[in-house]
């Protein structure tokens, strides 16, 4: 629906925002984005996975293996303090960006 370039730039913000409330595992994150965007945004494993790895590497999120009886173990992610700060920054950036785009590109509020 949206171009890959547009998506790539926004994935980090989306993941961080989704982890704000509680820890989630990778697949759940993908499904949530899809569900909440009404199917207009979808992420496949190859697009989500490296981003998660990168966010963890930068210390924004922290992964943890959790095992449930009768299931394979899953890797859950949770927001770190750094991640929370990054999320706030990113939100502000996007807000500013959208503001600028509204002015410059003649976007209209719906």
């Amino acid at each position, binding site marked *: 629906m949206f171009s890959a370039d547009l998506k790539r730039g926004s994935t980090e913000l989306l993941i961080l925002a989704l982890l704000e409330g509680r820890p989630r595992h990778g*697949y759940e994150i993908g499904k949530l984005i899809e569900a909440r965007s009404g199917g207009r945004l979808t992420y496949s*494993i190859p697009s989500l996975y490296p981003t998660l790895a990168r966010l963890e590497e930068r210390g924004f999120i922290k992964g943890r293996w959790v095992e449930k009886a009768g*299931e394979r*173990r899953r890797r859950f992610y949770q927001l770190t303090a750094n991640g929370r700060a990054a999320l706030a920054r990113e939100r502000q950036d996007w807000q500013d960006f959208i503001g600028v785009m509204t002015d410059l590109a003649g976007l209209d509020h719906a």
Partner: protein
Amino acid sequence: MHDWTEFVRRNLPAGRLKRECEDELIDDLAQQLEDIYQEALAGGASEAEAADQAQRQIPDWESFLQDICTRNPGKRQATLERWSEQAQTAAHAREVHGHPLVRLLADLRCDVLHGIRVLFKSPGFAAVAILTLAFGIGINTGVFSIMNAMISSPQGFPDVERLMLLLGTRSPDINAGGISAADAFDWRAQSGSFTEFGIFRSRAKTWTGGAEAMRVRGLETTAAFLPMLGVRAGLGRLFPAGGGSAAAEPVAMVTDNYWRARLGADPGVIGSTCILDGVHHTIIGVVEPTLHLRRLAHFDVDVLTLLPTDASLDRRDRSYQVLARLKRDISPAVAQAEMDGIAAALARIHPDTNAGRGVRVQSLADRLVSPNDRLMSAVLMLAVAAVLFIACINLANMQIAKATGRTREFAIRLALGAGPMRIVRQLIAESLLLALAGGALGFWLAFLAVRIFYRLMEGAPFTLEELGPNLPVLAYTLGISLATAALFGLAPAAMLSRIPVANAMKEGGITGIRALSKRRLRQGLVVAELALGLPLLVCSGLAYRNVQGLTTGDLGFDTDDLITMYVELPQFRYAEKQQWPAAFQEMVARLQSVPGVKAAGGTLSFPVGGAHYRLAVRIRMEGKPRETAEPADYYSCQPVTPEYFRTMGIPLLLGRHFTEQDQAGSLPAAIINRQMALAHWPDEEAVGRRLILEPGTDDEKSVTIVGVVGDSGRGIFGEAAGPEIYLPLAQSPMPGMVLVVRTVGDPTSIVPEFRRALRGLDPDIPISEVQTVPEIVHRWLQDDRLLALFLAILAVLSLVLAGIGLYGVMSYATSQRTHEIGVRVALGADRFRIVALVIRQCLSLSLTGIGIGCLISIPVALLLGSQFYGVSGMDPVTFAGVSGLLLVVGLLAGYLPARRATRIDPVQALRHE
């Protein structure tokens, strides 16, 4: 049903990632694909469609892996490795969003259960470890509970921060302590800094009217005193406020101890009368059991009486003390400034008695627990900490040795995917179990030990209840148990968690550099153990030699067949000074007439064991101006009867003894000891010189030295006799004397005769403290002996622990050399060479430890030696003795493995390889 793990494994390009990282990645991807597949099925897709949907998720495996790996290969790799560790950590967590604490507890439970299984598998090791720890922790807990009780003993006083002692001072820096009651009453009337004022003094009294006259330990107080201490009447009532006037009927209280020991705990004593110093007193109450009186008076009080408030009060009689409570908003400094002003005003009004007299406001808590007490506590705590540290080293050593046997176990667990942290935690859990078990046992041991110790300690300033076990002690035990676990558990844990899996899995176990470094570590630990043990041994040796030196050293008089007793003339019968010398002369004469008595005499205080009372006088030489008012100008001055020196066996070096002719009216005479003669007339004749004495309360007088005697006795800390001046009793009358009697044979059997002889003179004279010289010395050295005993226990513990540690290391080292020794034996080495081989290694470890230990010991010994008078800190006998002892233990620890080595069968040893 699809096997997604297999699918991912098949598609993921192999060999790009570390094995374990790859496994993690496969697991995670497989789970996600499974989710997609299941969801598709649930959404109504057929199995084939669902599988297809999942399989299409990762269209290009190559670029997917590239994406993960190439961005930052090193770092990514590290991240994945971290995953693998964390995977293990989470293995037991049951709930996704469970609280971290819940997960931790679940892990802990698993670790603990495993730990218990491991410990039960080697009960011998567990028992030794727990016992070692129990002794180490127990001794620490015991000392802590005593120190804690000691340091916190002032806390029992109500509102102790505001309780101040007002101490008298003489010229700026001399702390005279006591003050006169008249001054105290003036202070009370004039000062505005205090809410309450308690004046008291200790005064022995004669209790008559019973079967036998008794000397009781009395405290005279104002009515406010007991309520200030928060002390209540257990029976009857306290002194009435405003009591103590001459018109009021004299009243007394007895302490709980005295009431139980002497009055049969009879409640009927309330309202009855007793005769104290010849005056009838009505007993109005029994003081509840308390240690506060002992803490303030430094002895166990028997009887309390009211201080007369309207007696004519002599400002020279400075036998009183003042306890005062600061007002809420007044600081001690403000109170001090006010008291300085009041003292200065009193000095102007009463220049003859109060010139140069001041007041020092000191907090009661500081007075009761001095900085020196705190230092001594710290030193003792350090000593016991050293023992615990040695115990920890031993256990660390044992853990390392034991862990060697478990290398394969850990390697297998690592290979199966356990993270290093997991292994470390497992080992720490085992250590914790040992430490807590040892701590619990140690706590119990300490509980028993301090009770025994309390019994040995006379006049402890705290109760058995205050010794605990209480919360601080429990917290302390728990704390050191945990610290111990960290100390002895971490080194082996750190070492084992780094096992290279492949090496460990081989039959030979760890080899090469790692084994070497481990051996070095263990040897280093043993050397540390020996080096720490030596100072403890030195301290113990010094303490023992101190007691030995004080006991057997020359006291300057003949200690055999000598008995002493203290007699104080009741003031109500002997109010006049002039009566005193005659009374004592008569007593001495009566004692001399008892069959079996060689000689008898009297002195103000016995020269050993701490004086009852000494006169301190300032002297100056006639014709010379007074020197500065240094404390060193004060000399101990002893009134004695003429027979005293002969009875004691103190030699007369020059001049003559006192005689019956040295009477009140005749020329004032003095005898000095050798120290005094050497100090003032090193090259001249002392006899015939004149001294001017300025005693505290009397007018100054000039005395002529008529003789010089040998030095005798020791100071309260065991220091050598200082300069002394002796005066004839007839010229310096005293109401209380120590009578000394030399007998033919054992003096204790004639004691009833002595009592009868003295009672024949006057039944109201109380006789107390009948004791032989060995008894005096025993009591005098009680604290030193306790210290020596305590240090000996520490030293033996550390010696045993060090021996065990060294034995363990040597056994292991020898077993590692089985092959080498086998070869040597096969090549013809005899038993002696084999033993020498092992012993040499052991000797080098022992000597290194002893060398370092000696270096550590030197400052410790110097510090301790400065407190001892029976031995010098750098006592060569002690140093040589304890080094030798440690060496013997070291050699013994090496000899046993050496002997085992000689029995190695070369054929067996070689085949083993």
